[in-house]
């Protein structure tokens, strides 16, 4: 809450800086703004920027780093007494828990001391932060006001500042990608130090539960990811079997046959399917579709699991339909009318035109769309978490329960975690695999779609 107040104060100071800067501009121009280099408000913006931006930068750096620094200082006496790094992290978390007051019980004396020191340092840090940030803001304002002259080119300075902001914002996408890669890569490397890469990639056994004592059964845990990959592919395959024909055919129908009226109703309705949250699909799969398959299977003497891959795959297919249909619709409408006219002029029927001319012409785009849809199905989480199984099962039978990469990531990471166990780290290794495979699919698909667009532009 305190930091919110500080930010509000900072904003208010900047607003004040704006007015002071503008007034100063009027002053130096002798109330004749024609003699100024820039419009008066630019002098205001200039002052406001000098007031707010350096202070904000200091503020954010400080709040990012102070927790660690305070913790290191508070526990320095414990660290000096020759405690290993691992025990230190335990001490850190213990101190944090007591500081936030979420633990009941009597802590050990050295922890009590550290907690007291931590609180004290935190108070000092907060007070120092306020003083420093506010003085930087005031100093910045004074500096800017001092620099205001009649011929100073403040507009250029302000615009340069704006450009820096714009460029910084546009690079966030890159930083996000780097962040994703680094965050999954680091933990994955730690995982592969514990479990060999080939065991992970080619192993047929997946049971990440590691026992607490080493003499218990299954003490090592098995991290062979093949059953997960197989399960993911099976469910995605079922989804594509459902979605590809329905999505493609409805795109063809809506683009080539349907009247404008029907199209204007049917298209948005189909797109509703794309807007429904996946958790709703998951609930639908678990509540309606899976019991339906189990019961019908029971009627005809088939043993269908209540978490069958079929149910999850079908519902995922429904989810992917609008995706395929709208992408295919785009590429089909992008095929030049001249191609259709040529085929129709030669006496082909409409369906012959579509099958022999339009679809082959649009094929790269359609394939690209399908690849994007596959990547989406592979990465889809909630439907499979709610409707697919948890135990790894290497099978190609769609009536049995299988598990997927995303389901395992969720089950491994939900709940309490310790970041040094292979079990938790395995989730990041799976995340890396997921990211890489979808990345490859996306890059290929985007490339194909882009090439296709250029072809007809």
């Amino acid at each position, binding site marked *: *809450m305190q930091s919110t107040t500080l930010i509000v104060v900072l904003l208010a100071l900047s607003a004040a800086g704006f007015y002071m800067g503008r007034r100063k501009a009027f002053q130096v121009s002798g109330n004749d703004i024609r003699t100024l280099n820039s419009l008066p408000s630019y002098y205001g913006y200039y002052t406001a920027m000098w007031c707010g931006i350096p202070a904000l930068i200091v503020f954010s750096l400080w709040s990012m780093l102070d927790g660690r620094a305070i913790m290191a200082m508070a526990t320095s006496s414990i660290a000096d007494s020759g405690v290993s790094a691992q025990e230190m992290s335990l001490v850190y978390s213990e101190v944090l828990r007591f500081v936030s007051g979420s633990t009941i019980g009597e802590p050990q004396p050295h922890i009590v001391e550290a907690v007291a020191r931590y609180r004290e340092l935190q108070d000092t840090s907060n007070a120092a932060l306020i003083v420093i940030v506010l003085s930087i803001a005031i100093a910045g304002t004074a500096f800017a006001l001092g620099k205001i002259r009649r011929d100073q080119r403040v507009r250029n300075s302000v615009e340069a500042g704006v*450009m820096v902001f714009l460029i910084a*914002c*546009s690079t966030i*996408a*890159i930083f*996000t*990608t780097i962040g*994703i890669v680094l*965050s*999954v890569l680091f933990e994955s490397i730690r995982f592969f130090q514990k479990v060999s890469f080939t065991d992970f990639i080619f192993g047929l056994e997946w049971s990440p539960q590691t026992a607490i004592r080493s003499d218990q059964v299954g003490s090592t845990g098995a991290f062979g990811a093949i059953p997960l990959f197989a399960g993911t592919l099976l469910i995605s395959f079922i989804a594509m079997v459902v979605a590809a024909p*329905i*999505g493609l*055919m*409805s795109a063809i*129908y809506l683009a*080539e*046959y349907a009247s404008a009226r029907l199209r204007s109703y*049917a298209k948005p*309705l189909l797109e509703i*399917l794309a*807007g*429904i*949250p*996946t*958790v*709703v*699909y*998951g*609930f*639908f799969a*678990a*509540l*309606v579709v899976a019991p339906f398959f189990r019961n019908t299977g029971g009627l005809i003497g088939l043993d269908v699991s209540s978490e069958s891959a079929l149910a999850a795959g079908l519902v995922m297919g*429904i989810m992917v339909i*609008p995706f395929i*249909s709208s992408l295919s619709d785009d590429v089909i409408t992008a095929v030049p009318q001249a191609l259709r006219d040529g085929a129709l002029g030669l006496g082909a*029927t409409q*369906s*012959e035109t*579509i*099958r022999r001319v339009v679809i082959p012409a649009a094929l790269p785009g359609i394939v690209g769309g399908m690849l994007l849809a596959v990547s989406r199905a*592979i*990465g889809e*989480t*909630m439907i499979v*978490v*709610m409707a697919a199984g948890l135990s790894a099962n290497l099978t190609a039978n769609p009536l049995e329960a299988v598990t997927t990469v*995303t389901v395992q990531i*969720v089950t491994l*990471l939900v709940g309490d975690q310790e*970041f040094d166990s292979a079990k938790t780290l395995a989730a*990041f290794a799976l*995340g890396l695999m*997921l*990211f890489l495979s*979808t990345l490859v699919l*996306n*890059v290929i*698909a985007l490339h194909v779609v882009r090439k296709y667009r250029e072809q007809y532009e």
Partner: protein
Amino acid sequence: MWCVNIVSSMSDLEHTGQRAINTVYAGLGRRYAAERRFRLYGMLAVLSGLAFLVVMFTSIISNGYSAFRQHYVQLTVEYDESRVDRNEPAASDFEGIVKSSMREMFPWMSGRSDKRKLYGLVSGDAAYAIRDRVGDNPSLIGSREALWVLLDDDADMFFKGYVTPVRRQLMSSGITLALEGEKAVLTGDEAAFEVIVTAVRDHLQAQLAVARKEFEDMGRLLEETEAGGDRDEVVRFKAKLESLRMQISGLQARISSTSLNEELGSGMPSFLINLDGVYIRINAITATGVSGVVFAEDVTGLPTIFDQWQLVTLEMPPADRRLSDKEIVVLLALQDRGQVESRFNSVFFTAGDSREPEQSGILGALKGSMYMLIVTLLLSFPIGVAAAVYLEEFAPQNQWTDFIEVNINNLAAVPSIVFGLLGLAVFINFFGLPRSAPLVGGLALTLMTLPTIIISGRAALKSIPPSIREAALGIGASRVQTVFYHVLPLALPGMLTGTIIGMAQALGESAPLLMIGMVAFVVDVPQGFTDPATVLPVQIYLWADSPERAFVERTSAAIMVLLGFLITMNALAVVLRKRFERRW
């Protein structure tokens, strides 16, 4: 000579032309059929897509609409001074007040387990309701009043018809009541108990069918074993076969017997007889009538001859339902006295999560969603707009820009769960932000929705014709001024549309939030950006995992609320687009 040639070649030509046309005509039927088929497939594809939509919506609405109403029960509460402490009302025994009120109404529920069942019919929330009532009006202490309190979820489910189908029939053939201690014997003519007799016979028939099936299977098994020659097995199977034969003949005799004499087991529907508000559960049937247990404290005042009575059938056998006959009789009696009422379920909209379905609501999740969306909007809108402006208006055409574009397009297709991993590793583990907080969820979802906003923002900027920019530049505006004073205001509606769609996406997202701990069971309604919270889709996920029937309806209702928000947001985007769309 050459004339002839021409003529002959012309007739040749005519001939081949004729042949070609004939071929075309011959194939035409097949081709038209293919055309019709193709068209039909297309139509079927669209229809099946729409059918999925309809099935999904109907199943969710039919499961969820009943959650918007909730049943309340009227208790006569005595704010007894021995229970309510005048000086310290908070420490009083409010649960005891509820219990004694229930005991007073149904003294015949007297056994230990019966009492527990009786108290279980009222929600645990009733004690809190009484506490609040006394807290607000201390003058009530020492007095009595009628108070409406929440029913337990199982009882609520019964009144909503999910526990068992209840059939009430008014019977007008007279019966006579005779009391033998606890047991009541009812005698009447054949028509009076015909329904029960039929049900008993049906039940016996079903048992007979099962026994016959088992008998046939056993016979086949015996033949196979005899061929195999395992002596011991053969002997054992023969004995079993013999006992089945006995069972079948016994059942046949019981069915065809004119003087029926059967006990009603727990595998059968329950039959209750309502004599002027006193319920009798039928245990056995004989040739002359039925006998059963009276569920009432004092029956001495009852008349012995009834011309009209009510037969209540609970069609789900007691073994298959969550409420016993006794509990249902209590509920029916309360209903008969007008002490049960269905009201709008305000708890659902004003409470946080709870383990008790009747006390759980979506307010906590709604507020969590709200805080999270505020964070997402405040970050992603300015950043997204700035990035779109830079890429569309200022960025030079070079590899760096290309690289940014590839990154954005790729991020738009990265699975959402990966953003959860990013949030967990960076925001929580590295920066040490609190787990389960809307702030962290908002940050992760900002990164997820940015590509959507950037892509739609660029499309909006692209649609502004260059003449606007040229005019502004021509009268001496700088490039930044051109963009911020002229291009951006015109593109803003389009950008807002994209932002709203991105927000709708963020509102419905749950997978990344599971990663950063927003699945915690949070009872308190969050009050700020760093309080532990959950969001609406995650609440749906949590409830969907709960086995209680009442949570199924609440899950569906929460989905309806979520879809309501999403539809509103998307409709807003459409309206915005229609209202401000300009064709240049």
